[in-house]
């Protein structure tokens, strides 16, 4: 049974496309995480919960009769201010402390967000309908939901937009300068406090986009944020900080790996397989790092 994929090679096409499309969406979330990790040295445990909150914004629009796809515009705008407020209220109190404190703080935020979403939106699993239909390839043997294609397309657009923004705009340059050397940036007149707030806001906005896309492709529930946090954490670990192409490739790679693990090892091992891969990558990376250190000596 495990070798079904070799008996019906068309399944490889299906698995590859499924993996890549989902991987791109995860890469978008991971990019936000990499950005604020790189700039502020904060690992945001609440990342997945910001995603789910973004999803609920799109779902609320769906409930009042607006097409949930508009959520990819509305949700990031609202989420930018949520992120900005979070920074002002909590994060700026811990941003200069060590990594452990920031992990604790964002873990707390995650719990508060979960409970608030449970309180406001209820504990039921919900979905928003896009009614986008299906793309069929190879005489219907490969079927792709158009909602997933839409999600990947929007993710790519936002990612490209962000890269251009970071390269060309004043704020983008200030963010990059702060990431490289906060003290030097401050001496040269960059308002680092504003940069940090904006970075946190941009990350939350990206989560908002991803959440809106998840509301039409997967399911929403107040307590399902953590898998998104873990997944984006893994993508960032594999890709490294501040390197968008690497994040995109690592997102798609993990998506592909997971799909193929499902066919070859069995569904129960798909997430376990990804974690095993993470362990290997961590070991390998440390190996490389130690080589570098030797060279430095």
């Amino acid at each position, binding site marked *: *049974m495990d070798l079904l994929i070799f008996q019906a090679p068309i399944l490889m096409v299906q*698995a590859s496309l*499924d993996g890549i499309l989902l991987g791109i969406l995860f890469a978008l979330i991971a990019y936000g995480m990499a950005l604020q990790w790189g700039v502020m040295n904060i690992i945001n445990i609440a990342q997945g919960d910001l995603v789910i909150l973004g999803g609920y914004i799109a779902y609320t629009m769906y409930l009042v009769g607006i097409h949930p796809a508009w959520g990819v515009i509305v949700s990031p705008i609202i989420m930018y201010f949520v992120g900005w407020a979070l920074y002002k209220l909590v994060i700026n109190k811990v941003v200069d402390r060590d990594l452990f404190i920031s992990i604790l703080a964002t873990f707390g935020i995650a719990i508060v967000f979960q409970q608030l979403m*449970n*309180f406001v939106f209820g504990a039921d699993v919900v979905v928003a309908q896009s009614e986008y239909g299906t793309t069929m390839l190879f005489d219907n043997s490969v*079927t792709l939901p158009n909602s997933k294609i839409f999600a990947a397309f929007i993710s790519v657009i936002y990612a490209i937009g962000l890269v251009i923004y970071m390269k060309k705009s004043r704020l983008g340059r200030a963010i990059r300068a702060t990431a490289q050397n906060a003290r030097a940036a401050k001496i040269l007149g960059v308002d680092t406090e504003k940069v940090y707030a904006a970075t946190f806001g941009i990350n939350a906005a990206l989560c908002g986009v991803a959440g809106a896309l998840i509301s039409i492709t997967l399911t929403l529930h107040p307590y*399902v944020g953590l898998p998104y946090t*873990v997944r984006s954490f893994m993508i960032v670990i594999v890709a490294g900080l501040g390197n968008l192409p690497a994040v995109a490739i690592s997102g798609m790679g993990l998506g592909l790996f997971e799909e193929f693990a499902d066919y070859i090892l069995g569904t129960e091992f798909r*997430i376990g397989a990804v974690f095993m891969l993470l362990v290997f990558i961590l070991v390998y990376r440390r190996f490389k790092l130690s080589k570098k250190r030797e060279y430095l000596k």
Partner: protein
Amino acid sequence: MNKLVKLFITSISAITLALVSFTSSFAKVDGEYIVLGSAISLTGKYSSNGVHTQNGYNMAVDRINKMGGVKVGGKSYKFEIIYYDDESNPKRAAQLAERLIKQDGVHYMLGPYSSGLTKAIAPVTEKYKIPMVEANGASRSLFTKGYKYLFAVLSPANQYLEVAIDLAVEKNGGKPVRIAQAFEQDAFSQDVRLGILDAAKRTGSEIIIDDKLPKELNDMAATLAKVKATKPDVLVVSGHTKGALTAIRQISEMKVDVPMLAMTHCDAAKLSKQHGKNSEYALCASQWHKNLSYKDKFFGGGKKYDKDFKKEFGYAPPYQSAESSAALLVFKDAFERANSFDRDKVRDALKDTDMQTFYGNIKFGPGGQNVAKPMILFQVRCKGDTCENKVVAPTKWASDKFYHPIPKWSERG
């Protein structure tokens, strides 16, 4: 003087102590009230079903109290329930069960919501020999531990979809079928899976896909692609509300054609409302449906229960509420037959329960599970854009014919 103060303090403490033990020894029956305790999920991830459970309990308490209460030793008593919020957390539930028993002196318990929380509480009630009637823990493992004080009014999880396999075989002209199944890796869904394995063995059917979905997973595309490639006769999915919603979303988006689709948690997921026409023809396991012809003198029948519940709480009762109401009918019946408040006598009376309620017949097996009530299957059917659940099995209560096979997606409007 000093001695007098000491004496005073000692006597005060003695009186307080006496009072405490006095109240707690009478807390099980406080004046005209029989006090029951329940830890229930009013917040956290089970809060919606926790509230359904609580509403079911409250409705039955009001009804029984209004209709003469519980008659023990020629005197009429009323029910009262002490609730605590377990926050959907098993550890908290176990603590609260201790608190109900030790501090509040509760001698009879009602179950929490979900198998997981019932599993957390059962060892506590067992330790203190407190009879517990539960209505929302269906996991088979609850009934194989040899618990003596646990009684469940609902059918165990392994029975949920067994009927579906029999139905598939029947539709296949009595010949074995090819089954594809996907179950979440949690206690409940895996118990449902064991039921399917038994049914497959019994009918000689073959299981061609047997996927165990990780809990974190919300994408079943790979499983469904395998289903598409292997063309089974029946697809069985169980993974709580998330599993049901994900399955319907992806089956419709990936245009997976299967002649028969059987699931759990359809009504908890509000499947027909959230997915509309895409959920049509899905076959769903349920503990109860308002159209069943069971009757009792407190609620009349299912339809009357449905009406009264809607009037009181403003929404149609899910089966979680109905079974919770039934739990109190069982307690009342047991108290009256025991004609005593002695815990062991009540426990023995519970063991010998054999009654009919609006929710179904109730008779407990050796493990405490209800063995007298079959599961029912309904099928989602749509007229225009409104979809409804129609009972199709067992044939005794079927209001509609089971539609089989499911038309192909290319033929569906």
